């Protein structure tokens, strides 16, 4: 049995399926998230809603802060680096992070190239708006994909759009003749072997989560219904009135997304949801970062 790091990294994402990954900014929040049933936490200095509010350049978090969170919880800890920022990724690998999110939430460090993630031992998750972006990130070495959505808005519309787009493109590929796959690889600007995988299996070769704008148990259940294998919740939890209760409700909604009676109960008395920004009011479009 060979020790193929990439396979092992794909496998870790498989263990996260059916779970909720929550953004946290302090060890205390990380503990709340773990107790509420998060399957992993994303350690960052500012959640996307605050990054939006603060403006300016947004960078990798202080490694000391990330280490504090690693010590506080037993579940996997993820952290974000800027798109194309090889050195930030190396720093995160040096502190043995469980997953790096090469994320459009931070300011991109490179407006052309993503990180060659195949050169790293730690796993990477990347955002995608469509199948082309997803497969390009996988070709670069990402072992997990999430929709980009529009982080920090509390508006689920973009995540829905991206998830639907990815699956409709997958269905389109499955409907092609075998000899038409080469043209499709050219159109999507991705390697032919990944197109062939999608053609044969009807799915991405790695786990696919929803992210960006999920704020309620119903939002999470919607994304699961549309084919997400789990959910990232960023600003939605700790920007709400009752983070503990909302976090626990979202966890249960992901497990039982098909049970509408349970969803009705889970959606009760959660207090104030995060305020949210409508599509037309967004000043910074994060989903445009990294194609």
């Amino acid at each position, binding site marked *: 049995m060979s020790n193929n790091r990439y396979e*092992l990294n794909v496998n870790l994402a498989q263990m996260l399926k059916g779970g909720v990954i929550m953004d946290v900014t302090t060890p205390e929040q990380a503990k709340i998230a773990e107790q509420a049933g998060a399957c992993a936490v994303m350690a960052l200095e500012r959640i996307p809603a605050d990054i939006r509010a603060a403006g300016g350049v947004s960078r990798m978090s202080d490694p000391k802060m990330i280490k504090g969170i690693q010590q506080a919880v037993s579940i996997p800890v993820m952290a974000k680096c800027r798109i194309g920022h090889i050195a930030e990724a190396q720093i995160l690998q040096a502190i*043995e992070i*469980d997953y790096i999110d090469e994320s459009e939430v931070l300011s991109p460090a490179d407006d052309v190239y993503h990180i060659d993630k195949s050169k790293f031992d730690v796993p990477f998750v990347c955002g995608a708006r469509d199948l082309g972006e997803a497969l390009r990130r996988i070709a670069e070495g990402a072992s997990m994909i999430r929709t980009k959505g529009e982080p920090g808005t509390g508006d689920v519309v973009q995540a829905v759009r991206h998830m639907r787009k990815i699956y409709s493109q997958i269905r389109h590929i499955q409907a092609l003749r075998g000899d038409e796959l080469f043209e499709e690889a050219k159109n999507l600007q991705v390697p032919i072997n990944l197109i062939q995988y999608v053609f044969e299996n009807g799915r991405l070769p790695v786990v696919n989560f929803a992210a960006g704008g999920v704020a309620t148990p119903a939002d999470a259940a919607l994304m699961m219904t549309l084919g997400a294998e789990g959910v990232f919740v960023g600003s939605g939890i700790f920007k709400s009135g009752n983070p503990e209760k909302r976090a626990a409700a979202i966890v249960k909604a992901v497990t039982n997304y098909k049970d509408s009676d349970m969803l009705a109960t889970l959606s009760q008395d959660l207090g104030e949801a995060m305020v949210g920004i409508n599509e037309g009011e967004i000043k910074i479009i994060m989903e445009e970062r990294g194609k």
Partner: protein
Amino acid sequence: MKIGVLALQGAFKEHEKMLTALGVKWCEIRQAEDLSKNLNGIIIPGGESTVISKLLIELNMMDKLQHILHTGVPVFGTCAGLILLSKQICDDTTTTIGAMDIEVKRNAYGRQLGSFAANGEFLGIGTIPMVFIRAPYIKSVGKNVQVLCTLQDKIVAARQENYLVTAFHPELTADLSVHKYFIQMVIDNIGNN
């Protein structure tokens, strides 16, 4: 024969694929009422043990599951499933099902950089591929527990009566032998009743 796969969180689909490959019927257990479905065996998959434990309690499934296991229904736990079946976890307060006389160490090989694959000798099967993802190992076993596999001096698979546990993930490989071993336990149990 029907196997229930605990589908609260984690890699339950991978187990379902193994059962399908063996021609065994299965169903998913997501709520307490799913445990009433006359199951001949139960699989507890890999995932995060803290999450699965919490959901077992809050979805009112823990007592019912414990009751079914006490009646002798075979159960197979991998990774998080092993942790949940143990009576004791080192330095950890996660509530477990508490079925097996084993003490378990969580994240025993460290973070994701410590995850690895290896070949190991499984008692009664032979050499098989084993995938360890942020895996636990068994620190000590009670006298009724049979050790099935030791790797690098750590116990990574064991059996006690109707309970089978592995710290590794046979469901992430193409090797069906551990699942076959479990199905044989299920067949034997049906025969005994």
